[in-house]
């Protein structure tokens, strides 16, 4: 039951992109086509889950026992940056097709604030390891949902005849606002 609440709240009620404003850069940057947005969501799912597990272990077994929790930001960002590099190298060796599919998106993820944000939140919400994993996967699913929905809308928007100044990012932002309004309907669900 507890896990169910975490999943619903992460995907719908406080959606990571549309309600918490994390990961706006890839949300705006690579949402031009449905296929690329699926690739990016896959890469985020992968990195977010691993990063949350590793940072949870570091927080619990290194930072807290040694009383150096104020170094959290520095530790976490370094872990995520090196993790992304490692994942990239490993994927290249182990699964070339997956590397082909996710390849170009992986380096972009280091500066994706969603990954760091989810890792920090898993700690500040006092989740245990299993809850953190569920939290990370659910957030990645929420990211994928917002991303794919938005990419679908943007593919249609390309065909619209918009005023010159509104073309591109401004119109996309207004559409994202309307999408966020739809997601407001989920508030109060859990």
């Amino acid at each position, binding site marked *: 039951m507890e896990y169910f609440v975490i999943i619903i709240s992460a995907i719908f009620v406080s959606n990571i992109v549309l309600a918490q404003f994390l990961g706006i850069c890839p949300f705006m940057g690579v949402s031009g086509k449905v296929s690329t947005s699926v690739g990016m969501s896959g890469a985020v799912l992968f990195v977010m889950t691993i990063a949350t597990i590793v940072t949870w272990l570091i927080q619990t077994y290194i930072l807290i026992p040694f009383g150096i929790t104020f170094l959290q930001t520095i530790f976490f960002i370094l872990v995520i940056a090196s993790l992304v590099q490692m994942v990239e190298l490993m994927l290249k060796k182990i699964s070339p097709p997956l590397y082909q599919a996710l390849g170009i998106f992986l380096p972009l993820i280091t500066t994706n604030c969603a990954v760091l*944000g989810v890792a920090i939140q898993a700690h500040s919400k006092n989740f245990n390891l299993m809850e953190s994993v569920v939290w990370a996967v659910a957030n990645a699913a929420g990211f994928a949902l917002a991303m794919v929905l938005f990419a679908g809308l943007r593919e249609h928007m390309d065909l619209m005849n918009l005023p010159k100044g509104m073309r591109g990012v401004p119109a996309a932002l207004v559409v994202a606002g309307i999408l966020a309004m739809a997601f407001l309907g989920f508030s109060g669900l859990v």
Partner: protein
Amino acid sequence: MNQFQNFTKGFIKDNPVFILLLGLCPALGVTSSAFNGLGMGLATTFVLICSNTVVALVKKQIPDKVRIPSFIVVIASFVTIVELSMQAYVPALFDSLGLFIPLIVVNCLVLGRAEGFASKQNLLSSVIDGAGMGLGFTFALTLLGAVREILGNGSIFGWKFVEGDAILVFILSPGAFIAMGYLIPLINKMRKTA
């Protein structure tokens, strides 16, 4: 380019938020009021000036291959300083900005200026660039926060001039996207006529 232009380019011409579209996450996430936008902007400005200074000073000592991780460590250290000082001196603002303070470290604006400007230019230009870009970012966040606060709450910097409710949706998450979507073409227009 003289130093004055270097300083003022961040406000309209190369505004980090409206023109370069960097740092959109904090710009949308914390601007439910003008005061929050101002606080977040000044915190980022501090980090930006300090990281630009340090990067400009040590750029010759850092090997080229590890420069990005080194820049990130420099930035993360200053973010930690800001985080701890804000927690100590302005706890109310720290609580309302919440998660976005540690997330300054992944703000593409800060890393972008370190990598794109400070690692190539001299110390003085880097400091001025950091200050100009930071204040441009602060201007953008305060403007967005003010627009959202006026429309959503009928107040500005906490001073309420409309009785009762206003258009509540502008304080909530959709309002951030919509206000931003209309401000970008406006600033673009100003930039062309200026």
